[in-house]
């Protein structure tokens, strides 16, 4: 798998796919997309790196603990859901706000995005934790 072609294509893919996954994540709550597929997309490009450049080589410069990311994602998602209780609404009630930014225009801030970010981390953490551990298994 370590031909020049795959290496070059992977190098091109990494920034494109990770940016696209983030754009899917942010589009999630009212357009096609969301935390889950964004996360899967991001995990796929990292696992492509693992396959093409080799797990050991990749780990020598890029080795986050994916299980921590999983925990953090679950924490963000559940805290978002709890946040509604603090504001006196029911659990999981989402809130939305439109903010005007000078020179850019109106942007939409939704609490559903925070939940989606949590899901994004959970998916990335789970998939890559499994992928890395299975890869390390002798």
């Amino acid at each position: 798998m370590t031909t020049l072609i795959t290496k070059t294509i992977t190098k091109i893919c990494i920034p494109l796919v990770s940016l696209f996954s983030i754009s899917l994540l942010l589009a999630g709550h009212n357009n096609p997309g969301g935390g889950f597929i964004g996360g899967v997309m991001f995990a796929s490009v990292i696992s492509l790196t693992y396959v093409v450049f080799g797990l050991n080589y990749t780990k020598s410069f890029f080795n986050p603990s994916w299980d921590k990311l999983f925990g953090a994602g679950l924490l963000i998602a559940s805290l978002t859901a709890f946040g509604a209780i603090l504001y006196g609404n029911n659990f999981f009630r989402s809130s939305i706000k439109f903010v005007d930014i000078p020179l850019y225009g109106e942007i939409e801030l939704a609490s559903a995005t925070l939940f989606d970010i949590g899901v994004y981390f959970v998916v990335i953490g789970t998939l890559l934790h499994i992928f890395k551990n299975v890869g390390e298994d002798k």
Partner: protein
Amino acid sequence: MNIQEHLPILVVAIPILMSALMIMLRSRPALQKTLNIIVSASILLMSIILLLQVWNSGIQVYEVGEWGKYGIVLVADLLGSGMVVLSSGISLLALIYSLDYIEGKSLNTTYHSLFNLLVAGLNGTFLTGDIFNMFVFSEILLLSSCGLVVASENGGVTKVSDKMEATFKYLILNIIGSMVMLIAVASLYATMGTLNMADLSVKIATLSDAGTMPWHIYFIALLFIIVFGNKAAIFPLHYWLPDVHPTAPSPISAMLSGVMIKVGAYGILRVYFLVFKDALFLLQPIIILLALITIAIGSIAAVGQKDVKRLLAYSSVSQIGYVFLGIGMGTAYALAASLVYLVNHAIAKSMLFLTSGGIIHHAGTRDMHQMGGMAKSAPLMSSMFLIGAMSIAGLPPLGGFIAKFVLFDAAMLGEYYLPVLIGFAFAVFTIFYMFRAWLLMFWGEARDSKKYGPYPSHGLSPMITVPIIILAAAVLILGVYSEPLIALSSEIANQLLDPQPYINAVLGGSVR
């Protein structure tokens, strides 16, 4: 909004939050332990407050995300909140027990977060008012319990390969069960266009009154017998249980046998008596028949076992048959009796599994033929096992006697003479196998120390003995002073047979 109105979601969501926190706190084992015990205790407290609230002011409905009946609705009625109290009580004690019983490495890495997910899954299944959500929570339950079954205990009595084999069976069979549940839920949705159980109940009742009930509703109802029968280990789907419950570490066996198989009984009660109440006449004979075969198979198989935990697992199969017998008879008294039976069995069986953990710890083996004469070296375990065995066998001052008494009384009043006869015959079997086990382990000569070595007794810490003693006290109290439980169960049975208050609470009396 008052914080008390949030209780139904808090008992589900706090364990999920904790399970995330426990992953982050992996490097701080002491903090994990204290935090987890505090959280479990507070969930028990919250569930008791919830039950009292429901008892005093009627069914509580909580709309998650404020979407009304189109979103996820949590409904705390007496059955649901009562089951939550039962499961949080047992899980608190099992958690305290496991802190000393489970091996350090597996305790610190995955045990705490999976245990919290298990609690969340249990509470969610008991409280949800949405049938698809019930499927989701039972998946959470299944997957987290798979992870817990492979957790290794101190001393390593059970081989890892055995655990893997048992978990594989458990996972595959229960995933097939979940598939069946998904098919059933999907066909229900395709037919009725809703997933809310109260809404389903109203729509099916309307169709049934008009005489236009689609024929496949009956088949969907039959599919749910497979789903919940598989969860509760009812014959012909009982065979995974005697492999899984013995190989799990003892506190998890206590959770599995004490609470998780009751999810099946709960599901039957909730789905059949709320949604499919017009198809019940067709289902009740089937449930009674399957329950009787389950009773017979479980007790006959338990007689021949030499592994103490396997014996207890077969005994669970047989005892859940009695619970289903009561459900199948379906009168208010019989339902109350089966709920009394369910609670008594949950407490006594989880206590017996915890005790068996202590016995295994003491003897270093699970084989009863390699034990003997332990009454002298382990007096506490011996008396606790005797209390549990007497309760399961149904001997007087203990909870099991009351449970069997009301169940048989209800069956006699309902003129189910043959089921009573069969149930009674196998109750005698129960006495035989429980006391055979007790005699093999605790009476007679101590085992041949040349052949098997002396007991590697190193005493039991209070973390292990105190939960057992608390459960034993509960068994005794339920036997001597059982009126509150019977009153609660009768009230639950009345609520089950008349689902109108439930429907009114969820749908608010108006179409939205």
